[in-house]
């Protein structure tokens, strides 16, 4: 007899727990009520006692995994075992449409779960076989779990079904943003709004994808402009088409918000002035403001890792490396070479890498992997005089920083005695566009405030 060990619910409103430690290894024997694993939830950390005596035969989750309550986390084999207590009513089991993902422990050949409602007896093999019962029960649980996922998608909710019926929408054809991809009220309302929902019509809402290769679905297009006499028509270059696609894709993918800080660069300007000649002689490269910005951003990305992350489905990937993309304007377009592991580099390393990449971008000598793998991008419209812009995020990244023109401005300053006066300072606007899907305004403020603090008061060794 085997016993399935489930993640217990450690209090109302707790839906999941994290396994912090397995106290037994697979193959070890455990007594009933002996601590089997440790968990940590929103509320408590606890040792979970074994529900039965036996040998631990299977551990389904690793330490550190967060598991929904009532999920099976381990299997025990041995005397005093019992099947998973809550064997669900099989009437509710819909036929599983996908094959079972995992083979069950050896059991006598069981007929496949019959289609439609079948009482539990018919699932069992005719001959009494003690081992099959838990296996059948486990299969039923699994089928039920899968069918709940399916049910959420096909049945959604009473409200969504009602709206779908009123507008003749087939909800199973939509992709939703709710639990298990369920179509929510907002999903169907925005679908109806965008499609004008004719009864029986069924274009599918495309979930935004993050591959530039993906063709962009047609926008509710305004009529294509036609050239008239005297106009000049030119085919777009591959780069231009890619940029066009990518820009529109990005706007469709991310919820862009831009916040702007004014940063006093006077300290950096002075530092740069005193070190400029020495730096050039030492490194053979010019010392601009940008390496300082890069370094400040590196520190900010380490402090606020969500800015160095990517979204996939409903998960967030926090990138280990900081690979800074830097937008380089070209006569024929735009390219974003990447400084790999930028936070390993010193100011001179950053300056060298940046100048080298920019030079080679302009001479078309970049290698493919030098324009890939960026985790955060910095753009510098200030070199042309722009005060600030609202840059578009370079997918699949989550944020982009635009550095405006660094120029002398009259600023009101305060002496330590509290007297105000007007001083001439090197100032610049820093505009941070971020993806509000996963980054909140407060986080963006903290990020930029930290960059500002670094540039205005931080230590830089040149």
């Amino acid at each position, binding site marked *: 007899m085997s016993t399935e060990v489930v993640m217990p619910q450690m*209090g109302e*409103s707790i839906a999941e727990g994290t396994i912090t430690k397995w106290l037994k290894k697979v193959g070890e024997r455990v007594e009933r009520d002996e601590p089997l694993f440790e968990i940590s939830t*929103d509320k408590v950390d606890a040792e979970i006692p074994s529900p039965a005596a036996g040998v631990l035969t299977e551990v389904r989750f690793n330490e550190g995994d967060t598991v929904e309550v009532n999920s099976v986390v381990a299997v025990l084999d041995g005397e005093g075992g019992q099947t998973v207590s809550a064997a669900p009513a099989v009437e509710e089991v819909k036929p599983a449409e996908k094959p079972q993902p995992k083979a069950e422990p050896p059991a006598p050949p069981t007929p496949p779960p019959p289609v439609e409602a079948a009482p539990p007896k018919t699932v069992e093999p005719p001959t009494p076989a003690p081992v099959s019962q838990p296996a059948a029960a486990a299969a039923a649980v699994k089928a039920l779990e899968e069918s709940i996922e399916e049910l959420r998608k096909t049945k959604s*909710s*009473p*409200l969504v079904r009602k709206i779908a019926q009123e507008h003749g929408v087939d909800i199973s054809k939509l992709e939703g943003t*709710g639990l298990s991809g369920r179509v929510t009220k907002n999903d169907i309302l925005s679908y109806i709004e965008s499609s004008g929902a004719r009864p029986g019509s069924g274009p599918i809402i495309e979930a935004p994808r993050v591959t530039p290769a993906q063709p962009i679905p047609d926008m509710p297009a305004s009529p294509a402009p036609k050239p008239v006499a005297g106009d000049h028509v030119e085919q777009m270059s591959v780069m231009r088409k890619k940029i066009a696609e990518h820009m529109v894709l990005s706007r469709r993918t991310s919820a862009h918000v831009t916040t702007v800080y004014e940063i006093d660069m006077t300290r950096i300007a002075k530092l740069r002035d005193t070190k400029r000649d020495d730096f050039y002689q030492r490194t053979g490269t010019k010392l601009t403001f940008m390496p300082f910005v890069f370094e400040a951003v590196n520190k900010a990305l380490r402090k606020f890792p969500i800015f160095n992350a990517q979204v996939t489905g409903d998960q967030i990937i926090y990138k280990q490396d900081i690979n800074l993309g830097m937008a380089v304007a070209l006569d024929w377009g735009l390219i974003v070479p990447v400084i790999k592991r930028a936070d390993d580099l010193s100011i001179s390393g950053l300056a060298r890498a940046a100048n080298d990449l920019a030079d080679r971008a302009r001479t078309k000598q970049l290698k493919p992997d030098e324009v890939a793998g960026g985790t955060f991008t910095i753009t510098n419209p200030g070199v042309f005089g722009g005060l600030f812009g609202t840059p578009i995020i370079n997918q699949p990244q989550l944020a982009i920083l635009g550095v405006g023109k660094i120029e002398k401005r009259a600023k009101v300053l305060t002496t330590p005695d509290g007297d105000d006066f007007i001083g001439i300072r090197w100032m610049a606007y820093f505009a941070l566009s971020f993806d509000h899907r996963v980054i909140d305004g*407060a986080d963006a403020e903290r990020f930029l405030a930290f960059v500002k603090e670094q540039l205005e008061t931080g230590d830089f060794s040149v």
Partner: protein
Amino acid sequence: MSTAVKKEHKSARPERGGPATLVEAIRQGIWEEMERDPTVFVIGEDVGMYGGAFKVTDGLLDEFGEERVIDTPISEGAIVGAACGAALMGMRPVAEFQFIDFISAGFDLLTNYAAKCRYRWGASIPAVFRGPCGSGVRTGPFHSLNAESFFLNTAGLKIVEPSTAYDAKGLIKAAIRDPDPVLYFEHKKLYRLPRLREELPSDDYIVEIGKARIVREGRDLSIITFGAMVLTALDAAAELEKEGLDVEIIDLRTLAPLDKQTIIASVKKTSRALVLHEASRTGGIGGEIAAMLAEEAFEWLDAPVIRVASIDTPVPYSPPLEDYYLPQTKDVVSAARKLAGY
């Protein structure tokens, strides 16, 4: 609490209106009703000379005399019985339980007598049964009860519980004027909470029994709650707002009869409902509201109705355990997040 201590100074008559905490608002309300109507009187343990364990009836004895402010022996049965008898003879008693936990000692008379008099004989019992309820103030298993569920299943009893000073005064006055028995629960954590001090109108007003109040408008989900949990809901809503979730909060104010109209109107708007209460989950009012929504607003729901409530144990003595027992802001936040993400 049986030691009645003679007070040295005379407690002043409360101002009519002006800034008041919840406890002052109740006291104002009772005082004004006693002035307005000579049949109104107060009865309970230590309500007279001592002014009540929480000073709700402070000063009433000096002002209205022993015939209208009656100290009783420690017998809730006697208090309820005397109140019912007086009410049948045309009086309007305001009976106090020192802690609402002890209402169970008057249970028989409340449920079998007070609640059914009108139904059986057409005789009305215009009595108010009031007292401090609620946990979160480290008063352990015998002084922390939320008793509404005992009585929700008894037809014939009205139940109110205010969460603001304004409502506290308006509801006690409405309860005293009501022709039928009203249970008036006062959350002891709110009595002197500075956050609840507010300017009360100086004119005579009541808050109608049976009407909920929209505390905060929102479009993403509705939190249906009452009593001290209104504040927890407000704190959670402020937190959720930072995540872009726009939460509507309904303060029931009256638990029986339930203001279904307001609840359903809100759920029709948001399509997602979270019921939050302090009493234990099983058999709590949350289940009743969830069932009502399933019956009457099914087609408007975009997610299952969720309950956040205390766990099914007595209220613990230990502060950390009591915090664990009681719904906290973060519990509401995470439940609301899940509900919104459904």
